[in-house]
Structure formats: structure tokens, C-alpha cells
């Protein structure tokens, strides 16, 4: 984005020039002439004042003021500025250094000291102990040297080590805050306030106190705090927090609104439909919080290693000291041991996994995918096989009219008559007929005397003549003629897994006769094929585990391109099947709708529920995709893999770096200040490496007309053309 060259910099009001750039500050686009101005403007006009953060910064600022002066004077002393004639001022300089270092060590060391103390009381040694011990040793030695008027001073080491570690911690914190940016709106549900309208009085109340039936006012730009119905006003809402779909939806009085969505442009009065804690948003909030709280297996291993690390390093530092003291003066040996302690500080290891997790969880959440535990992403990344439940996951979950075999009548007439009859039925097939009639532009003919024959079909009267629809058995029962050709074609249909319905009627008072056979099937989702292809492109085996009969399962497996299928499985059998696959392929993931395949989802290494409307708290899935979110699955897998590889890279880096630096330190090749800088740099690198996850491409949805064309009833559902899905192609690469 480049602003016009004659524009003025928002901050310094000078012309921005050709190289100016734009940034968004507080939601509005601003033009700046240089980066410094951009930063300065943000500092000046940005909002937010958390006093704790400010206090920390005061400490950091004053601490760096002191340490920088100590460092400066020490540099001067080292560089020999006070040699020669100025030698007599040296003791004064030393006293000055001591005077600066004492508050610096107190100010900067206090947080580390209190952490060490509180952990030590619980019998644990943390990395803070290393820092505290190292810097206090340097400070103590130098203080002695000042008052005994002899020896080298290491105040710069003491204060700079503390300074660099403080800075490192702060940058880590900032990195974490940045990593959890996407999660903030999801976690806001618990602290949200609602403007409740009672007796014409507006009151701000916590959401959890809101009960069903209360009236809530929501101003433009605010987040809607509860699920409910609009009583008054109209506006556009952005439901992206809940559905993952970011586009304004027009809503007016009578429409339902979801908690968590943003009211974009009009004031709304909403009648709450349930208490504040019951909204899906609040549930999501709980679930995300829980996911962040749990640590994954990798994290636990890393933590355990770190726990063992500290005592080992202390011992190593002692050995180093004892070795060098026989060869070097006391202060040099002390310094070497100090380097060992400082450089072994495993800060980056502790940071490696949680940041990548919260970034990954946040990215997925932005697209409506909920991760319910931190380990789920790593498990998914390691999965080699994905099992799909058929009904409602890969398929639409409701039958559609697929084929009509007629015997001497027009298809249109068959559909018209059947639609007339089925209008009186609640059966699943009735909806399919109505849809098919609608798609063909056929108006149903009025039918009278409609009777439902349970388990067999329907009969009634159209145009004064009897008509019936149902199984072959019904036709025989009525004594109507079943033409052998029709029966044969119906047999073919049934063999390929379709449900078959015969339609017959009397004409001109002749004997009844079956005139057509209609086949219905649960069709695969339009995006199923592309999704399965993309998953296979990612090196995953795709299998179908269905409770339906073999014909139907085979057909769906064939259409979507699955590697394998098993049919007729009861929930128990699905578990057995999963066990078999696990033995052969390693970790397995199971995708279901979360309704009737709970046991399967729980049994798999990772359970993925698609578009589940059930109570989140009771779900067994580790990962929940939004409604109609099957197409997101390849992207989710790619994200999970990116998260895992980031974590592994972080750990490899942190440990490798620590070990290499430790070796240098033991050999006495590393100055403590340099060691501290190296350590702060290592945690910064871990932060930056994790933040790379932010820049991964978002999911790609096959375009709407493409899907609509594929989804049109009656047409053969084909995959969206593959050349047109760059993201899927990318995922395969």
C-alpha cells in the first residue's frame, strides 16, 4: 500500500514522499513518512493502559538506564581511558559503578529472586535460580573488590546479565500476547458485559447474570453478548467468531442473533433466549481456555527435561569452577562458571511448544475450527490415516432423487403425481421428491384420500384414480402389474446401494400397474471429492467406515476416491476397525458429525467433528470443524503439521543452541554478557520462528457457483475441477 506522494505524514505532518507507507492505527488507515513516525504515532494515540505492564516497563527503563551507564563506564575502564594520568580517579569510578550497580541489581533481580524463592519453597529449582546465582556471584565478588581496593570489577556482567534476561522475558511476553491475538475474541465471552434494559433503565451487567427473556441493548460496533431474537432495530452482523465465516449478514426484527458476533451498523434491542453462560460462544470460550491450559506430550517432555537440566547445570558450573581455579585466578574461574550457568538457562525450551500451540489454535479459531486440547494438533500432524463416517460427513445426510426408470410414461408426470402424494408424508424421501419437483419446475397435482401404509408406502387418489408409491411388495399386495423390465432395472439400482420406490397408478379404469421406479441416494457433498483428494495429496490414507449397507458405502467411497471402505459397521465394530487400521498405519484420525459416532471419535487418536450442533461440553471430539466445514480439513491438517514442525524446530534449536553454547562456556570461550545475549537471542529466535505460523496461507474454498453446479439435484455430483483450486494444489505440493 502506497499513499499518494503529496499526502502528509499523519505524525509529523511533513510530506510523506514517494516512499511513504500506510498503517492502520486504531482502525483507521494512516499515512507515515517513515517508520519512526509510525511508531511514535502509535505510542501517542494508541489506547490501553495496564498499570502492571507500565510498572514493569518503568523497571526495565530505569534498570537499563543504570546498566547502560555501568556498561559505559566499564567499557571506558577496559579500553584504558583512565590509564596514565587519570589513574587516581579509578577508585572513584569503582565506587560510582558500585553505586549504580546496587540499585540495578535490586531493581532487575527482584522478579527473578522472588520467583526463585517461591519455587524453592516448593522444592523446585528453576532457571531463575541460575540467573540469580550467577549475577549475585558477580555482584558479590565485585563489591568485595571495590572495598578491598583490588581486583577486577564485574558489575557490568551482573547488571547486563539481568538486563538481557529481563528484556528476553519481556519480548517473550510480547510474543505470547501476539500469538494469542486471534484467541482474544473467543476468550472475551467470560468477561463480557451486557447492557440490560430493565424498567426503561439501562444497566451494565456481567453476561453470566443475564437470564432468558431479558432485553439487551447492543450498540453498533459492540459484540452481541447473548444468543437471542431481535426485538427492535436492524443491522448487519459479523458472525465470524462463531461460524468462521467473515461477512456481514443483514438482520432485522425477528431474526436470531448469536452471542459473539459483532453488531456492525445499527442499534439493536435483543430478547435473550437463554442465560449468558449457555451460549455457544461461552461454551467455545470454556473449551478454548481448557485447550490452552492443557499441555501436550511434547511440552510435558520438554518441561521434564528442563526440570532435570537445572541441577545438572549447577553441578556442571561447580565442576567448571573447580577445574579452572587450579589454572586461573579466582575471578576468571568464577566468570567461567558464571558463563556456564547463564548460557544453560533453558528459557527457549519452555517457550517452544505453547506459543506455537496458541498460534495454531488461534489461526484455526479464526476460521471457526475449535481445538479442544493442545495435543490434538500434534496428534493430527502425526496421523497417517483418516477414517470418515459416511452419513452426514462426506454426504449431505439426506436422500436425493438420483434416477428414474419409467415404463411408458414421462418422467415429469411421474414426479408430479408422486409429489402430490408425498406432500402428505413426513418421510425423508418425501422431501427429496419435493426438492426434485421444485428443481424441475413441476407443480404438484392435488391428491385426495392419502393413506400412509407404514413400512410399505402411500396410497391415494389423483384425478379420481388410485395411485400408490412404495416397495415392490406394496405393488404385489395391491395386485398391480410389475413389468419385468422395470423390476430388472430396479434390481440394478438397489444393487448399487440406492433406495428404490415404485410408483403405480390406474388409468382409464384399467388394472393398476407400476409405471416407474425411482432411486434415491444420499449424495456425497460437492466438496467431498476435492477434500479427499487433497488429504491423499498430503500423504494420508482415506477410509470410509459406514453403518450403511455395502452397496451404498462402496458407491460413496468410489465417488469421493477413498482408499478403502467398510460397511455395515455398528459403533462397536467401528472401534475394532479403527484398531486394525491403527495396527497397520499408526495414528488414526476419525471424522464424524459428532452425533451418532461419539464412541468412534473418542476411540480414534484424534476425533474430528464436522458441523456439530450438539453441546460442546459433551462432545468427544478433539477438533470441531464449523457447519459445512469439511472443505477446511486439508488446511487444518496442513496447519497442524506446520505447528508440529515449528515446535520440533524450536526444540531442536533451543536444545542444540544450549548444548553448543554450554560447551563453549565450559571451555571458557564465552563471556557471561555474551552468553546472556546469546540466550536472550535464542528465546527471541524461538518467538520469531513461532510467529512465522501467522504468515501461513488461509484455507481456500472452491468457488460458490462451482459447488452449486455440482450440488444441483439430479446432476451427477462431480468433483470441482482440480486445476481451479490453487490452495488444495498448494497443500499437495
Amino acid at each position, binding site marked *: 500500500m502506497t499513499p499518494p506522494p503529496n499526502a*502528509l505524514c499523519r*505524525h*509529523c*505532518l*511533513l*510530506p510523506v*514522499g*514517494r*516512499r511513504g*507507507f500506510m498503517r492502520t492505527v486504531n482502525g483507521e488507515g494512516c499515512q507515515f513518512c*517513515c*517508520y*519512526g*513516525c509510525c*511508531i*511514535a*504515532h*502509535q*505510542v*501517542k494515540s*494508541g489506547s*490501553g*493502559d*495496564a*498499570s502492571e*505492564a*507500565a*510498572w514493569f*516497563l*518503568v*523497571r*526495565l*527503563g*530505569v534498570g*537499563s*538506564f543504570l546498566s*547502560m*551507564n555501568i*556498561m*559505559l563506564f566499564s*567499557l*571506558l575502564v*577496559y*579500553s584504558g*581511558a583512565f590509564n596514565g594520568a587519570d589513574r587516581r580517579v579509578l577508585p572513584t569510578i569503582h565506587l560510582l559503578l558500585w553505586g549504580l550497580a546496587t540499585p540495578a541489581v535490586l531493581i532487575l533481580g527482584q522478579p527473578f529472586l522472588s520467583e526463585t524463592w517461591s519455587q524453592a519453597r516448593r522444592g523446585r529449582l528453576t532457571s531463575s535460580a541460575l540467573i540469580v546465582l550467577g549475577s549475585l556471584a558477580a555482584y558479590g565478588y565485585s563489591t568485595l573488590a571495590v572495598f578491598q581496593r583490588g581486583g577486577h570489577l564485574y558489575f557490568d556482567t551482573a547488571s547486563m546479565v539481568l538486563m538481557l534476561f529481563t528484556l528476553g522475558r*519481556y*519480548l517473550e511476553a*510480547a*510474543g505470547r500476547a*501476539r500469538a494469542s491475538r486471534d484467541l482474544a475474541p473467543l476468550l472475551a465471552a467470560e468477561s463480557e458485559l451486557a447492557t440490560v434494559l430493565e424498567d426503561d433503565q439501562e444497566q451494565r451487567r456481567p453476561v453470566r447474570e443475564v437470564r432468558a427473556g431479558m432485553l439487551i441493548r447492543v450498540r453498533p460496533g459492540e459484540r452481541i453478548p447473548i444468543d437471542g431474537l431481535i426485538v427492535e432495530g436492524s443491522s448487519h452482523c459479523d458472525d465470524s467468531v462463531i461460524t468462521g465465516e467473515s461477512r456481514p449478514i443483514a438482520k432485522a426484527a425477528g431474526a436470531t442473533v448469536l452471542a459473539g458476533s459483532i453488531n456492525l451498523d445499527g442499534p439493536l434491542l435483543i430478547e435473550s433466549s437463554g442465560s449468558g453462560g449457555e451460549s455457544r460462544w461461552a461454551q467455545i470460550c470454556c473449551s478454548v481456555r481448557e485447550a490452552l491450559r492443557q499441555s501436550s506430550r511434547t511440552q510435558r517432555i520438554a518441561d521434564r527435561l528442563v526440570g532435570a537440566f537445572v541441577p545438572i547445570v549447577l553441578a556442571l558450573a561447580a565442576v567448571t569452577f573447580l577445574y579452572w581455579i587450579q589454572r586461573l585466578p579466582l575471578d576468571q574461574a568464577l566468570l567461567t562458571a558464571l558463563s556456564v550457568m547463564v548460557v544453560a538457562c533453558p528459557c527457549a525450551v519452555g517457550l517452544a511448544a505453547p506459543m506455537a500451540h496458541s498460534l495454531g489454535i488461534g489461526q484455526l479459531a479464526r476460521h471457526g475450527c475449535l481445538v479442544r486440547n493442545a495435543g490434538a494438533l500434534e496428534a493430527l500432524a502425526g496421523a497417517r490415516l483418516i477414517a470418515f463416517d459416511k452419513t452426514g460427513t462426506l454426504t449431505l445426510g439426506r436422500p436425493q432423487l438420483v434416477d428414474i426408470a419409467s415404463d411408458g410414461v414421462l418422467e415429469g408426470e411421474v414426479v408430479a403425481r408422486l409429489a402430490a402424494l408425498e406432500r402428505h408424508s413426513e418421510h425423508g424421501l418425501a422431501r427429496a421428491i419435493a426438492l426434485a419437483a421444485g428443481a424441475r419446475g413441476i407443480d404438484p397435482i392435488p391428491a385426495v384420500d392419502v393413506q400412509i401404509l407404514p413400512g410399505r408406502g402411500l396410497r391415494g387418489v389423483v384425478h379420481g384414480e388410485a395411485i400408490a408409491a412404495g416397495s415392490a411388495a406394496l405393488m404385489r399386495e395391491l395386485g398391480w402389474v410389475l413389468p419385468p423390465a422395470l423390476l430388472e432395472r430396479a434390481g440394478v439400482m438397489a444393487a448399487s446401494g440406492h433406495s428404490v420406490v415404485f410408483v403405480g397408478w390406474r388409468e382409464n379404469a384399467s388394472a393398476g400397474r407400476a409405471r416407474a421406479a425411482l432411486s434415491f441416494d444420499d449424495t456425497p457433498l460437492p466438496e467431498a471429492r476435492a477434500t479427499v483428494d487433497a488429504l491423499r495429496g498430503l500423504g494420508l490414507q482415506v477410509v470410509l467406515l459406514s453403518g450403511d449397507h455395502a452397496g451404498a458405502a462402496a458407491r460413496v467411497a468410489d465417488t469421493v476416491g477413498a482408499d478403502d471402505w467398510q460397511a455395515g459397521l455398528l459403533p462397536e465394530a467401528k472401534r475394532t476397525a479403527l484398531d486394525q487400521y491403527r495396527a497397520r498405519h499408526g495414528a488414526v484420525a476419525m471424522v464424524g458429525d459428532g452425533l451418532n459416532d461419539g464412541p468412534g471419535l473418542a476411540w480414534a487418536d484424534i476425533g474430528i467433528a464436522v458441523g456439530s450442533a450438539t453441546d460442546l461440553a459433551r462432545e468427544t471430539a478433539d477438533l470441531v470443524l464449523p457447519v459445512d466445514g469439511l472443505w477446511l480439513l486439508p488446511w487444518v491438517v496442513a496447519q497442524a503439521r506446520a505447528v508440529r514442525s515449528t515446535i520440533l524446530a524450536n526444540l531442536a534449536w533451543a536444545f542444540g543452541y544450549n548444548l553448543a553454547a554450554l560447551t563453549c562456556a565450559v571451555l571458557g570461550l564465552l563471556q557471561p554478557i555474551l552468553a546472556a545475549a546469546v540466550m536472550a537471542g535464542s528465546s527471541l529466535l524461538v*518467538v*520469531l520462528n513461532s*510467529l512465522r505460523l501467522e504468515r501461513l496461507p488461509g484455507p481456500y474454498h472452491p468457488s460458490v457457483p462451482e459447488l452449486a453446479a455440482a450440488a444441483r439435484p439430479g446432476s451427477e455430483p462431480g468433483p470441482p475441477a482440480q486445476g481451479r483450486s490453487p490452495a488444495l494444489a498448494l497443500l499437495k505440493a
Partner: protein
Amino acid sequence: MTYFALLFIAGFAGSFHCIGMCGGFACALGPDGRGAGATSLRHVLYNTGRLSTYCFLGGLAGALGQLICTALAPGTQRAAPLLSASLDVGQRALAVIAGLLMIVMALSFFGLRGRHWVMNGFGSSTLVVSLRRLLGRHGFAAPLAFGVLNGFLPCPLVYAMIAQAASTFNVLSGCLAMAAFGLGTFPAMLVMGGIGRLLAPSWRQRGVRLAGSFILVLGLVTLSRGIMPKMAGHGLHLPWHFA
């Protein structure tokens, strides 16, 4: 002495650029409720913080210069030659680099910018948030801390001066060079804090040009030190050479 006077003047001229950027901070820091004395103290502390960061950076740059020179030409360790004495190979190389850097910076003040190479993204945004948090706080520690952190904000003027400090090949000279520059920015910034209002853009534009010219001259002189054969001293001496 003339050398540091030159840097002081560069700082003074450059502070018209500072007013555009950091002057906003001085204004935002604003008056203290406890009266004029407290307000002055607040602003002096802020500027002291800034100055100490500059000195630190200058000293560090000088030390780095010294380190590079001794590494490149061992055995020729000498007191800072600054503008007077002849240079060895390492010092020449460093002087050329520093001079070129300063010239690029100076040109940027005239609107001829090179690529935006300043650090981007995470680090700076963190610094921004930090500074923002500090502005609202009372007490005397906050302005000091604010000044210290402010000194680390990316600024072409400071970069140019750091390059200059590095080309002194000495901790003390580097530190003093930055101190002279920092002190030069004092008057304008203190006045800014007192008035609490920004100068008209046209005036600031002139100040920026002036600062650019000074840096350009300094850059050219530094560059020439690296290129010219032996340069005779022209009275630009270190203060302690007189002592």
C-alpha cells in the same frame, strides 16, 4: 573541540527533525500537576534518559570500531585519531563505510530515500506498546524509563551519529560524540516540553534540511578520511589533546 561543537550543532539542527517525531512525546509527557519545578524535572529526566541511551550506543559503537580495527591491523592500537591523524587500513575501511552510511542518511532527509531497511514488525511494535504504556504514568521513574526506551526508537539521525561514533574507533570518543549530539537536541526538546505544542511544519521542514546538510558534511568528511592519502590536522582536535 571543534569536532564536538560540530556534532552539537548537528544535534541542535537535527532536533527540528526530532520535534516532528519525538517532540510529540515531549508534549504527551506534558506538565506535571505539582508545579513548574516538577514539570522541568520530568522533562530533564526524560531527556537524560534519552541522552544516556545515546551515550551507551555511542560507546558501544566506538568499542566495536576499536575491536574491528585491532582485529584488522593488530599492533597498531592508538588513541583516537579523529579528524587529525592518519589512519591505518582498518580505520580507513570503517571510515568509508561510516561515511557512506551517513551520506545515505543525509540524502534521506532531502527526500531521496533508499529502501526501507529499518527493522520491521515484531520488535518495533513491542517497543511502541511499551512506550504507550509508560506515557500515562506519574512519578519520576516513568519519564526516565520513557526517555531510555525512546532513545532506542529507529531514527535515521541517530543511526548516522552512531556510524560517526563507530568511526572514532574509541569508546570514550564514541560516547562523547553521541553525548555532544544528544546535548544538541536538548534545547529544542526541553522547549517543546515547556510549550507543549508543535512547531509549524514549514519551520520543521527547514530544520530537517539543515540537519541533513550537517550530516552530509560530516559524512563527506568521514568518507574523505578513509579515502584521502594523509590528511593534515586542521585544528579539529580532541579536547584532551590540549590538556
